[in-house]
């Protein structure tokens, strides 16, 4: 895996999660005020930084064969979960992500929640903390697994950080949820990437020699893309497809 593909994979995966977290933070900030919201964001980012700082070296110290089996296997299961949801979403069996709708829902909930008289607003702090932590955990998982397999967690973290910065800058410029980001397509792509790399590393860890070496990654990606698109077509053709 080249440094560029590592950066690209962590950038795309992190951008999707950052867009979702940004929508929650924006809804809270404009409704409940920015101070408590940003405190919640800062606390969540601190927890995520500790998780990556602790897990990164711990995972990297595992012998490479075991690392690839365990981390590749985990990544494969995790990636298949993403891909499964993306296929169901594209086929009409799961509701599509809609940042405008999420923003409206979060804002309505924030307006309805009771307010504290003074000091830190517990609602804004807690919801911002939880939102950023939950979305960020997926980013942390991807950073640690991709980074450990490549032998550079900091490089993977740099890709994730670049995505977060890009999303925040775009969000501040627009002052609106980033609804124009093709989130559902990106989630589909991330599911394919995670499944591809997970398969490659897990099988390699089990002792498999891939024909063509790293070039097998591209063939795997093409194969999984064709299968996933075929599954979307198959379930879209069913008469009872309905968003749930």
């Amino acid at each position: 895996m080249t440094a560029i593909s590592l950066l690209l994979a962590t950038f795309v995966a992190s951008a999707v999660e950052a867009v979702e977290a940004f929508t929650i933070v924006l809804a809270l900030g404009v409704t409940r005020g920015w101070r408590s919201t940003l405190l919640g964001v800062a606390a969540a980012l601190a927890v995520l930084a500790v998780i990556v700082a602790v897990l990164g070296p711990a995972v990297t110290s595992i012998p490479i064969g075991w690392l690839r089996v365990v981390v590749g296997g985990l990544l494969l299961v995790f990636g298949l979960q993403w891909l499964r949801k993306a296929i169901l979403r594209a086929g009409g069996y799961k509701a599509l992500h809609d940042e405008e709708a999420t923003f409206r829902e979060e804002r309505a909930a924030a307006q309805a929640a009771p307010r504290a008289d003074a000091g830190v607003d517990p609602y804004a702090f807690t919801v911002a903390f939880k939102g950023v932590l939950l979305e960020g955990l997926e980013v942390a998982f991807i950073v640690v697994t991709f980074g450990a397999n490549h032998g550079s967690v900091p490089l993977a973290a740099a890709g994730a950080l670049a995505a977060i910065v890009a999303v925040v800058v775009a969000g501040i410029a627009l002052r609106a949820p980033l609804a124009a980001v093709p989130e559902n397509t990106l989630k589909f792509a991330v599911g394919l990437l995670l499944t591809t790399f997970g398969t490659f590393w897990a099988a390699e860890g089990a002792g498999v020699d891939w024909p063509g070496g790293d070039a097998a990654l591209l063939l795997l990606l093409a194969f999984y893309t064709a299968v996933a698109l075929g599954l979307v077509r198959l379930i879209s053709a069913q008469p009872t497809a309905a968003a749930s």
Partner: protein
Amino acid sequence: MRRLGSFAYDFVVGDDPLVAVLVVVAIAGAWLLQRSGVNAWWGVPAVVVAALALSIRRAARPHG
């Protein structure tokens, strides 16, 4: 502790544990075949596709 375990399970495994089980079987199978001298590079992708198709079929089963 139980909540943390439940969260970790949901986080990695998600809605369909059968997929995770099949992935473990696929990796173990590839390892066993490799130990017997067979380079079964096709094994894991084949099981992954079967697991995905099965899981999608179960989730998108026509209602009624």
